[in-house]
Every structure is written in structure tokens, then in C-alpha cells.
């Protein structure tokens, strides 16, 4: 680093430097322990804090979408609503059904939250700010993500309630179906960057041609892959419109129907943590992780970029939740296997075409770049239009008329 960018770099690395300074000033035998704690505790503090912020943002946002005010009683503009919610959930009675499997019933929320936290281990939330820099970070993330299904089924099964079991069954069917497009859409990124390490995937994207960064989302396959990834992520985290496992209007609360008080809050926490984690992976794979989109904005600290992108994706999640109604089970499965899966395969093909097309044609890098972009876009858009036609064939969408109502 040159001397000129030193202040910006200092702000960028302030947390890394702070950690090293603290570790250096601890006695030798405790250095490892302190280092580990200083890595873990910020994750355990920051993301639940973000959860608190998100709940109030979500309720305000959904309110405005429905032309309401949203919570506005606790503190100015209702900003202290999460505190009131926390007090409420902590003071509520914790009811365990008599015929429940007590051990499993007790363990399920803990397992769910623990696995949700584990996923943050491999996310680069800033330059040099990955908790554990694994060579197979993406693989680790998906393995941990699959473990949440176990916790969900533990909760559904141990409650000994027909609704919770139905919810758990739905959750398993949905999570396994959408895990395939989720992983396949990230395979395209892994193919292009040639690594499973999240840190190196971000490093690959933190280069600039002119002023524009090499984010994967700026390529046709990256854009399509990102959209597919986020759709699969929405399903994977049981967010609306894929909230069938919870479906409050049909199966009340799904797999956590028999949980109350703080355990119920833990389920909510885990759900939001999963949302943050999978959004964080989407940022890492497609949106250039902690890097800035333009080189002249690189002075903004990397961790601000990461959390800014995370907040933007959360706003997207809330917006989608406020817009779309819940899917039916058959629509959910049809969408996963007839649309998502073929489209992710198309994205992989497009990424392969991108990899092997020359970047420069007849000595002109710009012309070559444009041709490569257009060809890859065509590889994605062609199958999309064909698939859309096939899926919409014979389906007439018209305004529903009611015989007795209205």
C-alpha cells in the first residue's frame, strides 16, 4: 500500500488492526484463545444486532407497502420495537407439550441457531476479515446450510403435532429441491474463478477494467445466476413467497408451532441469520464481496461495502415479501424442477462459453468484450424465452370472476 491511501487503508483495516493489537497485549498462553474469541464474538454480536434492525425495518417497510405506518409506539418512530419484542419473548412462558420428545424438542432451536452462526465462518465481511479462510469455503457453507434441515425436522418431529410435522415435511421437500439450483448457480462462479475459497473468489472480482470492477453480476451468466441464486436463497430460508413450511394461514406456524417464549424467538433469529448468511454468500459469489463497484469508490472501507450490499439485499427480500402471495405446493415443486433447474444448467453452459470465448477479437479488446457479452447473453436469453413459452403453453391468464361475491 502506498502512503497516499494510508488513511483509507487504516479505516479499512481498523478491526483487523484492533484485533492484532489486543492479541499482542495478552499473555502468551492465552493468545490463541483471545484470538479465537475476538473472531467469534463480533459475529455473534453484529448479526443478531442486524436481526433486530431488520425486524423493525421489515415491519415498517411492509407497513408502508400496505399503506400503513407500521410500529411507531416504542421510542421515536418505533425504533426501540426490537427491545420490546425481546422483553416480551424473554418473559413469556416456555411451554413444552407433554407428549413431545423433550430432549430433541429442546435441542432443535439450539442446533438451528448454531448451524446458522457457523455459516458466517467462511464469509469475507471485509478485506482480511474472514473468520476461517477455508480452501473449500463454499463447500463448507453448503454443508452447514444442509444441516439446518436436520434441525427443522427435529423441531417438526419432536413436537408431536400434525401441523408441525406437515410443516417440517414441506420444509424438507422445499429445502432439498431448492438446494440444487442454489448450488448449481454457484457452480458457474466456481468454474470461472477456479476455487472454492470464498476469500479468493472475492479477490478475483476485486480487479478493475477502467473504473468498473470485475463483479460476476456484470456478466450475462453472472446476472442470470445471481437472480436464480437469490430465488433459491429465498426458498432456502423459507421467506415469502416460499413460506409454505410456516404458512400461518394453513398450518399456523409449521414446524415451530409448539415453541413459545425464547425458543420461538430463537427460531426467528435463526431464520434471519440464514437469510443474512445466504445473502452474504450471494454477495461473495456475485456482487464482489467487500469490493467497491467502481475504482474511485475504493476508499470507502470494505466492511461498509459488505454491510451496505447486505442491507440492499435485505430490502429486496422485504420488497418481495410485501409483493408476492404464497405459492402452492405443486407450483413450488414445478418451479424448482421445471424452471430453476434447467435455467441453472443453462447458466453453467453460458459460463463455459464465457470462459472459452476470446476476450479480444482482431486486436480490439472492447469489440471482443462486447461480442463475448452478447453471445453469452444470447445463450441465457434464448433458452429462457423457449422455456417460458413451453411453461406458459395452454395456460390462459384472465381476470377471475366471482358468481356470488361482489
Amino acid at each position: 500500500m502506498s502512503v497516499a491511501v494510508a488513511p483509507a487503508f487504516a479505516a479499512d483495516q481498523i478491526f483487523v488492526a484492533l484485533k492484532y493489537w489486543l492479541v499482542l497485549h495478552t499473555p502468551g498462553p492465552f493468545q490463541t484463545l483471545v484470538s479465537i474469541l475476538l473472531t467469534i464474538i463480533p459475529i455473534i454480536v453484529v448479526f443478531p444486532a442486524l436481526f433486530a434492525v431488520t425486524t423493525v425495518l421489515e415491519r415498517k417497510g411492509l407497513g408502508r407497502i400496505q399503506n400503513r405506518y407500521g410500529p411507531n409506539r416504542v421510542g421515536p418512530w418505533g425504533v426501540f420495537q426490537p427491545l420490546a419484542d425481546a422483553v416480551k419473548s424473554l418473559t413469556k412462558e416456555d411451554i413444552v407439550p407433554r407428549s413431545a420428545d423433550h430432549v430433541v424438542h429442546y435441542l432443535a432451536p439450539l442446533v438451528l441457531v448454531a448451524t446458522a452462526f457457523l455459516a458466517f465462518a467462511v464469509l469475507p465481511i471485509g478485506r482480511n476479515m474472514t473468520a476461517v479462510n477455508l480452501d473449500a469455503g463454499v463447500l463448507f457453507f453448503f454443508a452447514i446450510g444442509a444441516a439446518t434441515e436436520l434441525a427443522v425436522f427435529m423441531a417438526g418431529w419432536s413436537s408431536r403435532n400434525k401441523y408441525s410435522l406437515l410443516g417440517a415435511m414441506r420444509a424438507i421437500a422445499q429445502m432439498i429441491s431448492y438446494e440444487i439450483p442454489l448450488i448449481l448457480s454457484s457452480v458457474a462462479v466456481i468454474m470461472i474463478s477456479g476455487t472454492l475459497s470464498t476469500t479468493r473468489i472475492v479477490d478475483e472480482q476485486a480487479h478493475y477494467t477502467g473504473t468498473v470492477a470485475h463483479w460476476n453480476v456484470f456478466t450475462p451468466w453472472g446476472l442470470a445466476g445471481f437472480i436464480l441464486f437469490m430465488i433459491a436463497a429465498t426458498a432456502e430460508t423459507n421467506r415469502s413467497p416460499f413460506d409454505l413450511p410456516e404458512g400461518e394461514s394453513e398450518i399456523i406456524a409449521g414446524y415451530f408451532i409448539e415453541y413459545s417464549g425464547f425458543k420461538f424467538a430463537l427460531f426467528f433469529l435463526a431464520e434471519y441469520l440464514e437469510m443474512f448468511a445466504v445473502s452474504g454468500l450471494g454477495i461473495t459469489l456475485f456482487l464482489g464481496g467487500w469490493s467497491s463497484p467502481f475504482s474511485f469508490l475504493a476508499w470507502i472501507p470494505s466492511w461498509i461495502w459488505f454491510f451496505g450490499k447486505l442491507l440492499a439485499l435485505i430490502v429486496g427480500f422485504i420488497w418481495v415479501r410485501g409483493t408476492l402471495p404464497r405459492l402452492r405446493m405443486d407450483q413450488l415443486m414445478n418451479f424448482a424442477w421445471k424452471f430453476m433447474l434447467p435455467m441453472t444448467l443453462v447458466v453453467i453452459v453460458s459460463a463455459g462459453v464465457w470462459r472459452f470465448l476470446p476476450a479480444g477479437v482482431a486486436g480490439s479488446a472492447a469489440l471482443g468484450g462486447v461480442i463475448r457479452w452478447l453471445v453469452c447473453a444470447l445463450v441465457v436469453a434464448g433458452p429462457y424465452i423457449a422455456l417460458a413459452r413451453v411453461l406458459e403453453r395452454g395456460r390462459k391468464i384472465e381476470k377471475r370472476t366471482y358468481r356470488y361475491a361482489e
Partner: protein
Amino acid sequence: MLGEGIIQGLMETARNFFGSYVEKERLVTVQFPEERRSLPEATRQFPFLLYDGDDPERGLRCVSCQICEKECPPRCIHIEKSKDRKPDFVGKQQFYPAVFNIDVSVCMSCQICVEVCPFDAIRMDTEFELSTSDRFGGLLWTKRELARSNEYYRQIHPTEAGECDERRAKELADAQAKAAAAAAAAAAKAAQAAAAPAAASNGAPGSGAKSEPAKKVVTQ
């Protein structure tokens, strides 16, 4: 095109989101304790007892006929009749309720007590902020707690109270006319009785002409 409807839906919700910050009329929520919407005139919550004048004890219209007690479907009204009587608004001697309790935790706001009351003594209140920390005593309202003045009734149900007042005014006028007629008849009778010895000496035609107007009043 596949996905077009989703984009349209997202645009619609975005319009709602930003519109709610710009156009105040989009937000229909009334911020309740601070802002209040005026209640429609037909609002009804729980019954109250009407009284005339200033004294809720003396002016109470209820004559303890116990029709409402018998008609009440959930049987939330409890009345104990008085031993003595007191005059009502037309001056007739009537019983009054020594005890009149309504258990509002039982009352279902059906208004049947109001429909059946022949004395316009019980009406429905519009007050709805009635929560209390005393579950049993606090929700068992006594005669004193139930009594509301006629001015209050006029305020909450103007149309209904107007009709009621008109009817009662007519009733009072009729009663007064009747009383006046009765008094006149009595006076005439007394006069006749007084005149009778005189008539025996003076002759009948004079007394007949005297009693003519009094007869007219009675036939009215």
C-alpha cells in the same frame, strides 16, 4: 413473458411504499388514543339507566317492572323492587329499583332490554374503554354507576333522544290535560252539588248551562 407479472407487482408495491410518504390520504390508519374517529349514532356497547333532572336517585325513570330482567338472554340484569313508591314524571306513584345491577362481563350488547322497556328507562351507551383490573366487582355495575342524565343521552344519540323526548312530552301533556279535565269535572261536580239546593229553588236551566263546558273537556 415469464416474470412480467412479478415485475409489475413489484412496481405496484414500490408505488405504494413511496406514495405513503408523499400522499397523506393513502394512510388510512387512525392513531387511536390521540386521534379518534367520531362514532356513528347507532353505536351501542352496554346499557345505562336514564334519569330526569339532576338527582340520579330521585329522577330515575326505571319503575322496576322487571321486564328487561326477564327478557335478557344472558340474564345479566338483577333487579330488586322497592317496598315503597315514589311519583314518576307524570306524578303517578310507581315502584323504583332498590337494587339494579348489570354484569357487563355477561352482557352481550343485544339491546333487547332497550327494545322491551315501556318506560324509556334503559338505553345503550357508546362508551367502550371499560377495562378494569377488578374482574368481578369492576364489571358488576350498580344502579349508581349505570345512571346517566337525559342530557347525556341527547348528546350520544340525538335522533333517538329527540323522538323519546317528544313522546314523553306528549304523554305528559296528555296526562296533564287529563288531570285538568278530571279536576274540572270534579270542580263541576262540586259546583253542581253546591248548586243543587239552589237549583231546587231557582230551576234547572241555569245549572245545565254551567256544566256544558266541563263535559266537552272530558270527551276530548
